């Protein structure tokens, strides 16, 4: 992601290339030496990234089961874009499951990315204040969830959010009548919007036939009923664990903003909110772009928390679907790699779009 036209290159006057006719051999040697220095990283990059990537693209057009050794002649057959058709256009179980995963993942991204970015920014601004005592302690506390094993955190969350867990006990403390209809956070596939509508007595049957029509294997009602309650719990969990890392990135950027900018704003009579809104936020823009990109990619690929917490189709994400297609009973590596490729394209499109909207010319990371 390097800008073709970075402001720096424009401002630097171009130096006319020096004529070095006698130094051709030196230049060649320099090139060789350069690549030699690059070689260790390049080899690893090619062996562990480029080759697997190319193979994955190829496998996505085959029916390889992921078990038969690839060197066997009859390990797989090329079946064209069959896998992609089954996932995207052909009505059936594969399409339904894929779009269930897409729906869940989309709600997840929409819910988590803005929330975690905003909270991380606010936290960073707070722990960046000079008047704050024990800043180091607060920074450490906010960062702790990020360095704790996601498996451990998932299991602790399962305890916290179980029907008889602390979260429900806390809600019951605030609303004593809640106890009778306590939510089982860890295993509730009801969509959040659906749940809210149900409180007002609105269900799928009430709103008309359009809600029961199927699009891409899912009923319209399912599309709009929001992330499941269990998914909401995973979203809270993941927001909480990621904030720390993002806060540190924001913090580093905040400390790069020279204090005279703030002083100038203060002399011009800006209040705290105006300084935050008109000085801090614009100057943080490249960092915000970076943080949102990181968040988008990470959220689209969410796997381990979902894998641990489970919850069936209600929490199925695209990355989990890739794993489930690839391994275990009925493994189908062709289908799994096709799913992964589509996920790649989705992430790519979102990153490009995001760059259009947030990146601007300042995205120089």
């Amino acid at each position: 992601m390097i800008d073709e036209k970075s402001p720096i290159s424009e401002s630097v006057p171009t130096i006319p290339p020096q004529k070095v006719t006698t130094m051709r051999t030196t230049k060649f040697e320099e090139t060789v030496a350069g690549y030699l220095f690059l070689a260790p990283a390049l080899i690893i990059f090619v062996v562990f990234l480029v080759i697997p990537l190319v193979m994955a693209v190829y496998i996505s057009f085959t029916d390889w089961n992921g078990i038969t050794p690839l060197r066997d002649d009859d390990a797989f057959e090329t079946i064209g874009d069959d896998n992609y058709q089954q996932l995207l256009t052909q009505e059936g179980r594969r399409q339904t499951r894929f779009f269930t995963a897409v729906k869940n993942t989309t709600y997840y991204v929409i819910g988590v990315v803005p929330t975690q970015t905003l909270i991380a920014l606010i936290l960073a601004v707070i722990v960046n204040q000079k008047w704050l005592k024990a800043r180091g302690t607060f920074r450490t506390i906010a960062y702790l969830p990020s360095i704790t094993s996601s498996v451990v955190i998932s299991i602790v969350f399962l305890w916290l959010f179980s029907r008889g867990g602390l979260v429900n006990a806390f809600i019951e403390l605030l609303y004593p009548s809640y106890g009778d209809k306590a939510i089982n956070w860890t295993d509730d596939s009801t969509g959040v919007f659906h749940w809210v509508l149900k409180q007002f007595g609105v269900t799928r049957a009430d709103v008309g036939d359009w809600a029961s029509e199927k699009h891409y294997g899912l009923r319209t009602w399912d599309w709009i009923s929001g992330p499941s309650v269990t998914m909401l719990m995973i979203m809270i969990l993941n927001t909480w664990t990621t904030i720390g890392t993002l806060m540190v990135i924001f913090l580093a950027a905040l400390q790069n903003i020279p204090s005279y900018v703030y002083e100038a704003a203060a002399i011009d009579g800006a209040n705290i909110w105006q300084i935050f809104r008109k000085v801090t936020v614009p100057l943080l823009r490249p960092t915000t772009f970076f943080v949102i990109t990181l968040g988008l990619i990470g959220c689209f690929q969410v796997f381990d928390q979902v894998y641990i917490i489970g919850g069936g189709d209600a929490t199925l994400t695209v990355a989990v679907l890739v794993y489930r297609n690839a391994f275990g009973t009925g493994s189908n590596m062709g289908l799994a790699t096709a799913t992964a490729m589509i996920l790649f394209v989705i992430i790519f499109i979102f990153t490009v779009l995001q760059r259009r909207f947030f990146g601007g010319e300042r995205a120089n990371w």
Partner: protein
Amino acid sequence: MKRSLALVLVLTLALAVFARVPSSRAQDTVTIQLMGWSSSPAENAALEEMIAAFEEANPTIDVDLQLVPEYDTTLQAAFASGDAPNVFYVDSSRLPDFVDAGVIAAGGDMIVDPEGFFPSLVDVFTIDDTFYCPPKDFSTMALQYNKALFDAAGLEYPTNDWTWDDLTAAAEALTSGDTVGLVVPPELPRWLPFLYQAGGSVLSEDGTEVTFDSEEAMTALELYLGMVEDGIAAPPSELDSGWGGEAFGTGRAAMAMEGNWVIGALEENYPDIEYGVVELPAGPAGEATMAFTVCYGVAADNDHPEESWALANFLTGPEGATMVAEAGFGVMPARQDAAEVWLETRGIEFEAFVTGAANAHRWQFPVGFGDFIDTFNNGLKEAMAGNMLPEEVLEDSVAIAEEILAE
């Protein structure tokens, strides 16, 4: 970063060099890799003991035991890369995939004394009349009941002759406050016994037709879901538990239908609980339970087939099975005479697990049925939460099964 890269490179090279150094015994011994998953410490120790005994009896064979985490993934990667272990665990549900992929050797005559195994287990590992691999051990599902809770409710303990009506009546009487009568996990293998007890089936005998869309399936589903609706049974997650054994151990459920694994788990986590085990209740079509079993598969692509079979046969043969039985951990040996020894070690109160073998059904579906299992599990869960009707669960699952068979 660069330093760590260099370190990785150096380490890789060093490992490669060391890996190539032949061991001093390499001339006259053959190394057999055995891959499996780690069970309880007691079970792992027993396996190591058996392997030591095997190596003593066969001085020319060295066994390299690898108990790996994420077994399914690791084994699959080993196969795909053409570097499969010689001998490996195969769960009954996974056998059709391995046979289809051509990575498991057909046992046939290589398996010693096949008559000694429980016939139902031999049947599980037989596909298209080929007996692929000797069963290692097995578990069956049985009914566990909490004696204290039965006493408190003034009920008589369950017997092997129980029927569905006895089960629902007792569950109702045992439900009070936080405790429900029975814990019912929303999972296909836990519900399947009810289907078979009702006389239903998922597929026809030859596996070419879906027979799931039946009155019997509906009866079994209505019984299972009806108990949840009436509040006398609940899934584990409603009882603040991860699985049925935990709900039973904490006393939130008075009865559970778990397999042999519950013995060790209860012993370890809830040692104070007084419980008994009987066979699952009988339905309109009689008794039925599920058998979960694992065999020792031998790789098709194998440099040392004879030594591999020698190991598999030793571990599952009369001698190995007796050693499993005498160690007395949760699972039962797959040989009938060793099962007697297991009962002596373990105690007669666990007899229901052994007798269940007589009417146990296999936990196995044809290749590609993973989607069917997922769909049914999801439907069962939704139905328990009241979001789906039993007939919708059945309808969806039948549609998926037919779609898979049509391919």
